[in-house]
């Protein structure tokens, strides 16, 4: 029974997040004083040297509004928008790459982002938690505070600083990695895959380092608190070894809040991934967003943000649904 209520609650939150997220995405551009259609017509005017007649512009405007779902009152636009996004995953065509569908562009970029993001997050989370566990379990030793110091140094450094510093150090001062990475497209061959891997190392490293510090600090705090628990003392008196106590008694219990924290911080992690892609020109959602933002390609922007919201919410849901497997208290309530 406990699990069912838990799952139901979590699903409720999931749909609420999707709903509110999609609504914000829908409302934001419409609350803004700027009309993308005007901007686009202005662009066309510029290209046509102002030769477009008034009727032609009016027709163009009607066409564009039809195409981009700007027809009718706010409510019918909204219903229309939700139906298009949820049922068909349709965001219309891109402004810049005109007949190209936004959904195709985004779905092409998605594997890149997911591949980099998932790998980096997993590594950062596992490594950070292990280091944090050791730092917290042996917190009375001097050597452990060195580990914590690494966390303190790394945690407050913003993503973009980490990225630029790594670029400066590992691509400029010590040219181990390329300054501007190349990512081959088309048919995958072993060489190409190797190249992609090599070029992804630097952005990946940035993401790992960025997530690493926070995980060390929070795991350390949790491990210190858990080490003081009576059941750990009991295990020591029982004669359990240091290793057993650290892994089976402290780690398993301190892990649970870390799983929740991971689910909650996914949005932040995703922000970092987007930024990393922009700085390293990594061909994922982030780069698409940046190009679209500079070029005023609003359809692509809305598609990318909608997908981001769906992706982050879904990942959070998956983590929270795995949670009962780790925490027997929810299963047996």
């Amino acid at each position, binding site marked *: 029974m406990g699990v069912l209520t838990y799952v139901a609650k979590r699903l409720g939150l999931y749909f609420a997040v999707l709903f509110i997220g999609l609504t*914000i995405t829908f409302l934001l551009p419409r609350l*803004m004083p700027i009309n993308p259609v005007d901007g686009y017509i202005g662009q066309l005017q510029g290209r046509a040297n102002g030769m477009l007649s008034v009727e032609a512009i009016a027709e163009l405007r009607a066409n564009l509004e039809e195409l981009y779902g700007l027809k009718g009152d706010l409510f019918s636009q909204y219903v229309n928008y939700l139906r298009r996004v949820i049922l068909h995953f349709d965001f219309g065509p891109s402004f810049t790459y005109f007949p190209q569908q936004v959904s195709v562009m985004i779905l092409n970029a998605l594997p890149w982002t997911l591949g980099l993001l998932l790998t980096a997050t997993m590594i950062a989370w596992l490594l950070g938690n292990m280091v944090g566990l050791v730092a917290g379990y042996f917190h009375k030793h001097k050597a452990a505070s060195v580990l914590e110091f690494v966390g303190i140094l790394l945690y407050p450094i*913003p993503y973009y600083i980490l990225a630029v510093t790594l670029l*400066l150090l590992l691509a400029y001062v010590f040219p181990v990695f390329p300054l501007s990475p190349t990512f081959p497209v088309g048919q995958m061959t072993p060489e190409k895959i190797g190249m992609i891997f090599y070029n992804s190392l630097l952005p990946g490293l940035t993401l790992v380092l960025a997530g690493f510090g926070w995980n060390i600090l929070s795991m350390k705090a949790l491990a210190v608190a858990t080490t003081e628990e009576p059941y750990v003392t009991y295990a020591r008196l029982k004669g359990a070894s240091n290793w057993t106590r650290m892994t089976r008694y402290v780690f398993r219990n301190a892990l649970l809040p870390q799983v929740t924290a991971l689910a909650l911080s996914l*949005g*932040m992690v995703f922000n970092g991934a987007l930024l990393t892609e922009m700085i390293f020109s990594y061909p994922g959602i982030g780069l698409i967003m940046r190009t*679209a933002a500079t070029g005023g390609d609003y359809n692509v922007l809305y598609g990318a943000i909608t997908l981001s*919201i769906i992706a982050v919410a879904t990942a959070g849901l998956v983590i929270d649904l795995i949670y009962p497997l780790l925490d027997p208290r929810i299963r047996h309530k």
Partner: protein
Amino acid sequence: MIVDTKDADPVTMVVPPAPKARASLLWLVNPRLAVGLTILGVMGLGSVVLPLFAPADPSVQASYMRNLPMSQAHWLGTNALGQDIFWFLVFAIRNSLTLGVVVAIGVTIIATIVGLSAGYIGGRFERAVMLVVDTFITIPLLPILIILGALIRGNTSFLTVGFIIIVFGWAWDARTVRSMALSLREREFINMARFSGANTLQILVREVFPYVMAYTLVGFINTILFAINLEATLAVIGLSKVEVPTLGSIIFWALNYNALFTGHHVWLVAPIVATVTLFLGLFLTSTGFNQAFASKRGVA
């Protein structure tokens, strides 16, 4: 003054005897806090006082020759736009700090009101509020800010950027405040106040808020960090008001003019060092306060 850690009554722990207030500040001092406050003090004072002596507005382009090396006149040289890097950096730190403080004030006010009322009133109201809060936490912020940035770019003032960050940044703090309010709701002294005839508002203002103060201070500093970081992030990708010197816009210009390829390291290294120092200072101050408050409460 060392507060008796076994003292179980939270009220006396929170409100130390008034006459000893000066001496009682000593419990605050710990190495982290000292280092953090020193960094913040130097950078904060420097960024407020120094601009008064600035020879020229550093955001104006072509004030000097371009790409000058480090010298007596230009401590960090000039950049490819003919701006003095040192003064640009000083103004950047000032603007970033100001933005951070303004945002932190806004966020703290909203988060405290939302969090306290949700945790204290409870019931259906709380569930509705928390749903909104959790949604705001879950929704990735950067994409939304990118859209906003793309839409209003150029037509905005620097403070609008701060306002946008407030609108989307209050949720995490509200969650913390609310969980504190939840644990407070069950405490004896709250019941005591209620039985004495205090109404909800009075309890919130007089009983709960003083207790929450310590966390609010830590949260405040963390929000400054968050806001500076977010604005700088937007600036780095060119979606904030990049003409205004901030810790992000300086990197935006450096990257835009390919400081890496042209070998103009100072332009990039200087803001990196400044940012890392400032962020370390803020972080050490916030964890230092946390430690001090924790040891005062007898937790650690």
